């Protein structure tokens, strides 16, 4: 009997595919259901954000960077404002710092909720997505109440924030975070006891700490692999040193741990928001910054902890109205590079689960 001849074949996953979260093309070499090789092709959403920023004044860069990583626009605002403030040596009023922390953490919760929903959806459970969006809606309402925007906020400005919170914000925010803390427990009950969920996530896409560090992974993905590293604690910015919160660590580095760490982080962020609401001080919300803002010549690399890892801005100023060079770093780009490393020789369904667990935002990868 002659041997049956089998062939590997190429499969284009994307750019339009339900589980690539945007427009990413993965060129898969497949052996039946098994993925032999993954090559991500990016750039479908390139908008030249960094270049456009070079032709705009500093204040005009902020709405541009809103589109950099639109799921957590607040972080983009914060990191750019922080960089500009460090260049110019601006002192931010205390109330503004509190407002920034509240907004950043609410935005982190919203982002992790989207992660939770889409990951569950990619593994086949459609209902958690709508539960997660229901909770996210409350947060989006809070943002809308404060700055009028629901997705790209342009709220955190150089020297402070654009508007103070309205009176009904505080009680509603307290209610929202209490509700979300409770609902996260519900999510855990919904999925963690489910044997199919466990089969699909535990031990899938294992990422060890060395590989993660070698590729520059950061944020929840690094912490799920057992590296205790969080910029909010290790390179403090704003007023994070005033709050009491834990940094959850998991050690297996599989899809399940990457999912659990985000749920835990939601609860920790709720704690931070609660503390910030308790201890917020009265006062001005914006330092005096000239509309013709010109930082002195110099450069800075400023980084903050985003929901997808380290978000940084390398800002070079030549003393003019416009940034000389702006280089943005997002967490998703290194994480997408990790995909070929850990998603080879797995089933196509696992590839989808791993890709979802990285929580890659393609506009951030493509800039």
């Amino acid at each position, binding site marked *: 009997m002659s041997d049956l001849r089998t062939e590997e*074949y190429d*499969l284009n996953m994307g750019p339009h*595919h*339900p*589980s690539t979260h945007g427009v990413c093309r993965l060129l898969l070499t*497949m052996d039946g*259901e098994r993925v032999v090789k993954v090559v991500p092709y990016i750039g479908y959403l390139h908008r030249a954000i960094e270049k456009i920023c070079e032709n705009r004044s500093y204040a005009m860069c902020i709405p541009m960077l809103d589109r950099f990583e639109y799921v957590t626009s607040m972080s983009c605002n914060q990191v750019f404002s922080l960089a500009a403030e460090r260049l110019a040596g601006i002192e931010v009023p205390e109330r503004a710092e509190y407002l920034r922390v509240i907004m950043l953490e609410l935005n982190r919760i919203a982002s992790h909720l989207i992660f939770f929903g889409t990951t*569950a*959806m*990619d*593994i*086949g*459970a*459609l*209902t958690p997505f*709508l*539960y997660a969006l*229901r909770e996210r809606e409350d947060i989006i309402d809070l943002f809308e109440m404060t700055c009028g925007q629901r997705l790209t906020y342009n709220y955190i400005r150089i020297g402070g924030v654009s508007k103070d919170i309205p009176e009904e914000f505080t009680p509603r925010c307290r209610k929202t975070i209490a509700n979300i803390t409770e609902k996260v427990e519900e999510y855990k009950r919904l*999925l963690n006891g*489910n044997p*199919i*969920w466990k*089969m*699909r996530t535990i031990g899938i896409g294992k990422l060890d700490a060395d590989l993660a560090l070698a590729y520059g992974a950061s944020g929840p993905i690094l912490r799920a692999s057992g590296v205790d590293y969080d910029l909010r604690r290790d390179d403090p910015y704003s007023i994070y040193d005033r709050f009491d919160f834990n940094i959850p660590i998991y050690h297996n580095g599989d899809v399940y741990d990457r999912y659990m760490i985000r749920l835990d982080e939601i609860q920790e962020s709720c704690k931070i928001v609660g503390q910030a609401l308790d201890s917020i001080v009265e006062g001005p919300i914006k330092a005096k910054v000239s509309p013709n803002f010109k930082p002195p010549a110099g450069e800075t690399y400023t980084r903050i902890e985003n929901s997808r890892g380290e978000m940084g801005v390398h800002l070079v100023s030549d003393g003019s109205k416009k940034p000389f060079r702006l280089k943005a770093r997002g967490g998703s780009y290194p994480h997408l590079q990790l995909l070929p490393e850990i998603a080879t020789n797995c*089933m*196509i*369904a*696992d590839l*989808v689960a791993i890709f979802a667990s990285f929580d890659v935002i393609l506009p951030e990868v493509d800039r």
Partner: protein
Amino acid sequence: MIAIGITVALTELLGSFGLSGGLLSVITYTILAAGTFGLLSVLALFLVWWERKVAGHMQQRFGPMRNGWHGWYQTLMDGLKLLQKEDILVATRDKVVFFWAPVMCCIAAFAAYIVIPFGDGLIVADLNIGVLYIMAITTFTVIALLMAGWGSNNKYALLGGMRSAAQVVSYEVPMVASILVVVLYAGSLSTVDIVNSQSGNFLNWNIFRLPFGPIAFITFLIAAVAEANRTPFDLAEAEQELVAGFNIEYSGMKFAMFFLAEFINLFTVSAITVILFLGGWHGFAFIPTFVWFFMKTFAIVFLLIMVRWTYPRMRVDQLMEFAWKVLVPITFLNIIVAAIFKHFGWYWEL
């Protein structure tokens, strides 16, 4: 105990007009087929709407609301829309296979209803191999899906088709093994006989009467979900992995036919579950038998809808492992135990 069957009644009615012989049979069965087809089409429209409503309410939304009271004719409008859609044909398709796949899928879905008793006497033909016939004819769905996967000349579709072939063939084994337990006690493959063997008190239903009846019921239901290609076993479509699986290249009415067949299959597996394990049309006397049948079947459909919108999807190798390493041993053991119990008479007959 059987009231006069609908087929016999119709034959007699037409006979009284002077028809006889082959023509009489042809006309009788044509009318019955048309009736069943109409009933099932309406049923499928209802099931689609119902699934969307249940899913909506499970997910904190309303589901269809615009067309009529709570969107009751939404699926009718969807069907009309699909009728008007352009039938997009892939240039590189396998013409014959591509065209016949949805037809085959529909035929397989509808043909099972020849032997399904909707109520006392409400059956098109009481074949003495009824259950075997259902098992045989529903398996045609696999061929249709495989044809769709192959004929589309699309890698995603082919993967979907191959998945469904592997899946349905594997789950056929525990499914038949679960049915065998019922057949063993009923002593017949005829659906009517099986239902009649469960008459009287509800404790006579096979789920309660048989030794380890609940096990047979659960294994059958799991296999049935896999046969109907629904979450957690909807690997053939698996929209997050294969976009739409076998039907990725189908549009317009051809897509609608797959969709229709899917929901008819959902009703079929629920109806078979009711016939085999839940006493078919039997219930309290004052409610018509077909109402009982539909009530029980809809209860099972409701269960399957809830399962679909709750569970994540299994992976293809886990799916096969589950069939061959868990379900097959359990069901085979169940047959052996049931045979021993039957031999010694350790079961009740009320």
